[in-house]
């Protein structure tokens, strides 16, 4: 969502608020952040609008600023924690309390959760708060919910819908298993988050019952009407028949070996790496592990762009940190060598190689 649009309309005036909240939360100043939020509500800003057009854009900016190396990981977490506290503080404002349904009022019930391995809880938290403002009974389960616990919760509470948030594309295989398991309980699933792509194509691919591009769209979709019950018996392989070629399984299962092979290969090709510190070596191994993980995800989805997109993003991050982007190419070559018998893997690697070369920023030497 974009809360920083210029011009008239409901977003006008939000820009200042976004800036104020951003300044406060990125500085770790809880009090300034909460003051800004409470003052906005005092001034008549609708709590839902504040959540969707101020908090959400600020949170989105946290990720952007981190990727651009303008804030540290510590600041990233701190800003997120401050934003969480701001939401907590809002709950006590009269404008929010007035919106709560009376006790005993029959409310529509939803479960909102992040799938296992997903720790970016803020979008799910915002959706929960917005639905509550709209009178829903929301069970917000937070970040990283193990699937068996989620399913047990669904059996116990029987919600009308479960909303699952995923921001990281490499979690999509897990998300797929979770979506299918939720549907098997007869509960329709709405998904959202950056992992599903800008147009939600992966949501369709993975058989979700509905997709929303942002918190507002999700709330609208759910308020609009009940989702129809999902097809009960349904296996993940039904959605993605290409998985029978076992390429995903192989890459996912042998990921540590692939990382080891690539790391050794790089050391052989670039004797300079012998001089790496432990820290540098560790970072190189982690980078390669990410590459392998994304390769696995691209195989799972059968989407070469999922992999090349990640490499371009990584290249951007590397460049922001003073590392030339083409340092990624030798790793791709080594994986290509290792996966010689896997046609889909090779096609994905070749595609990424081309995309990366075309976007090449001049530079020299391997690095990590």
């Amino acid at each position, binding site marked *: 969502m974009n809360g920083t649009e210029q011009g008239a309309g409901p977003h006008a005036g939000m820009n200042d608020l976004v800036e104020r909240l951003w300044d406060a939360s990125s500085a770790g100043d*809880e009090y300034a952040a909460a003051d800004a939020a409470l003052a906005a509500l005092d001034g008549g800003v609708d709590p839902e609008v504040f959540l969707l057009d101020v908090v959400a854009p600020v949170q989105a900016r946290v990720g952007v600023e981190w990727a651009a190396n303008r804030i540290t990981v510590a600041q990233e*977490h701190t800003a997120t924690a401050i934003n969480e506290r701001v939401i*907590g*503080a809002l709950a006590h404002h009269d404008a929010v309390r007035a919106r709560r349904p009376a006790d005993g009022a029959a409310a529509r019930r939803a479960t909102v959760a992040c799938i296992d*391995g997903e720790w970016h809880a803020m979008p799910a938290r915002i959706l929960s708060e917005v639905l509550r403002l709209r009178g829903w009974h929301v069970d917000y389960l937070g970040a990283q919910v193990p699937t068996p616990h989620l399913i047990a919760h669904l059996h116990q509470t029987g919600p009308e819908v479960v909303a699952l948030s995923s921001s990281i594309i490499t979690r999509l295989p897990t998300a797929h298993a979770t979506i299918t398991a939720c549907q098997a309980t007869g509960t329709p699933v709405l998904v959202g988050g950056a992992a599903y792509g800008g147009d939600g194509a992966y949501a369709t691919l993975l058989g979700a019952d509905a997709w929303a591009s942002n918190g507002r769209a999700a709330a609208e979709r759910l308020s609009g009407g009940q989702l129809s019950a999902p097809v009960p018996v349904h296996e993940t392989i039904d959605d993605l028949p290409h998985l029978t070629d076992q390429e995903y399984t192989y890459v996912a299962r042998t990921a540590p070996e692939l990382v080891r092979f690539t790391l050794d290969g790089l050391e052989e090709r670039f004797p300079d790496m012998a001089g790496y510190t432990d820290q540098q070596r560790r970072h190189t191994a982690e980078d390669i592990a990410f590459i392998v993980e994304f390769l696995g995800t691209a195989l799972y989805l059968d989407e070469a762009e999922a992999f090349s997109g990640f490499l371009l993003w990584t290249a951007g991050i590397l460049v922001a940190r003073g590392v030339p982007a083409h340092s990624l190419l030798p790793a791709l070559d080594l994986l290509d060598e290792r996966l010689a018998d896997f046609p889909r893997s090779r096609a994905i690697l070749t595609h990424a190689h081309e995309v990366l070369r075309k976007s090449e920023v001049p530079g020299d030497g391997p690095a990590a």
Partner: protein
Amino acid sequence: MTEPTPGSGGLHELASEPNWKNAPHPVLSVDAAGVVAHANDVARLMLPVRPGEPLTEPRWLARAHAEAANGPVRGVAGARIFEACRTAADSGGHTVWWLSDVTEAQRLADRLAVERARALVLREASNELLSSLNLERCMEVTARLAARHLADAALVIMPKFGRRHPVTYCGPDGVAVREYLAVDTAALPGLAEALRGFPPVPSRWIDPAAAPGWVARRELGEAGAIVVIALPGHGVPAGALVLVRRRASCGFDDDGPGPAEDLEPAGGGGGFTEDEEAFARLFAARAGAAISAAGLYAEQASITDTLMRELLPPKTQRLDGVELAARYRPSGSRERIGGDFYDLHPAAEPEGEALVVLGDVCGKGLEAAVLTGKIRNTLQAVLPMADDHQRVLGILNEVLLNTDTTRYVTLALASVRRQGPQVWLRLTSAGHPPPLIIRVGGEVEAAATRGSLIGALDKVTSVTDTVVLEPGDTCLLYTDGITEARGGPLGEELFGEARLRRELAGCGGMPPEAVVERVHMLASQWAGAGFHDDMATIAITAPRRVHLSAVGGHGRGRFTA
């Protein structure tokens, strides 16, 4: 032998005897004007046709002729069903209709269609019912499927819960509605019996006109037939299924039997056939099993919930002038009750010490839950002695040794006291990883405390460390699920304390929620899809500046993820 042809039909007299006269099937020829020219013996025997008279009966055949329909048509004549095929009109304009008796074939086809449809219903029922362990959802599915396939409306009625019966009703619109009704089940014959597990009351004993209004609802108009079927449970009845049909559905469609589009009867003067009732019982057996399984599950889950509630940390996370955040991530395994717990006892008096406890009980599930409860109760009781950690641990050890369990626990105790801008901590580890102190500038140090685990040895010893947190400093208590997470880029490597300390070096000055989030994120990423145990962390932070606002600590901790 042909009957003499009456009337003016000179042409018919002239027409030569057809060569199909002795065919074993009904055959007739009809002229361009729609008058029957010839009909063989079989045709005249089985059909209401007379040569020389216009073809009016059977109506379906007359219609097919008039419409010059191509292809075979089917219809009833007398008690039989015929299929009729035409031959093209000859030069004299005569069309010959050949009929064959397909009564038996039709009966078999109908039967097959019914059986197929029933198999489909049972399959659908099994799929939908088996996938849910939610009682309300199972009742809804049962009512919906029954209303769609077995009747016009269906009710699933549960035994009384308090003073009312949980009822799910589904009408012809296919929408299942949950209700709680205070009704007298004796008003509908067979219902009270079904709910108590007595043999079924024959449906012919039920007078639909006398059925109470909550069964035969107004939207149905006049009820034609009602049947009550027990939903068999595990030894006890799970409830009852009531099927209601409108009088209209029980009527007779005289335009010949069509293909069996539905399981509802095409005739029979109203009510459910014996065959249909038998099938409804088959359906009810599955629904009953699913409903009682869901009931059992709900009961178990509520026991777990009660235990969990008992084990949950107190909701308040506010300590006087100290920031606190806790986070718990259960292991991915199916056990819903983990072995990690945490507790918070605020100070008894304003300047006093609060006590924070993080524990890790060996094992999981019910036994671990019971032990955790015992530990928490004991700690609560010995709270007045909390100024002496060693003594508290000694008492706890004795209590655990005196129970018949071989389980033990590791604990980290933190007594917390605000002193001006500083926070003073007394930290004791009993077989637990020592707490880590993250200074605002990023230095990380381990508290100098160690001690034996509790519940295994006759004597326990421990060393308590005193640590002062300056504004922005954080003390992190964590369970070994963090450091023992296995994985990493090369697999099978321990996350380990060294890595944890290195990562924490980047966390100086962070709010406690951010620290616990960061630690959980790193450990989970490290473990990836690999196994990890429960992970619990508590961060205690000295506020970076004096509290002026009332905002601090509103955010509820998410100890249960």
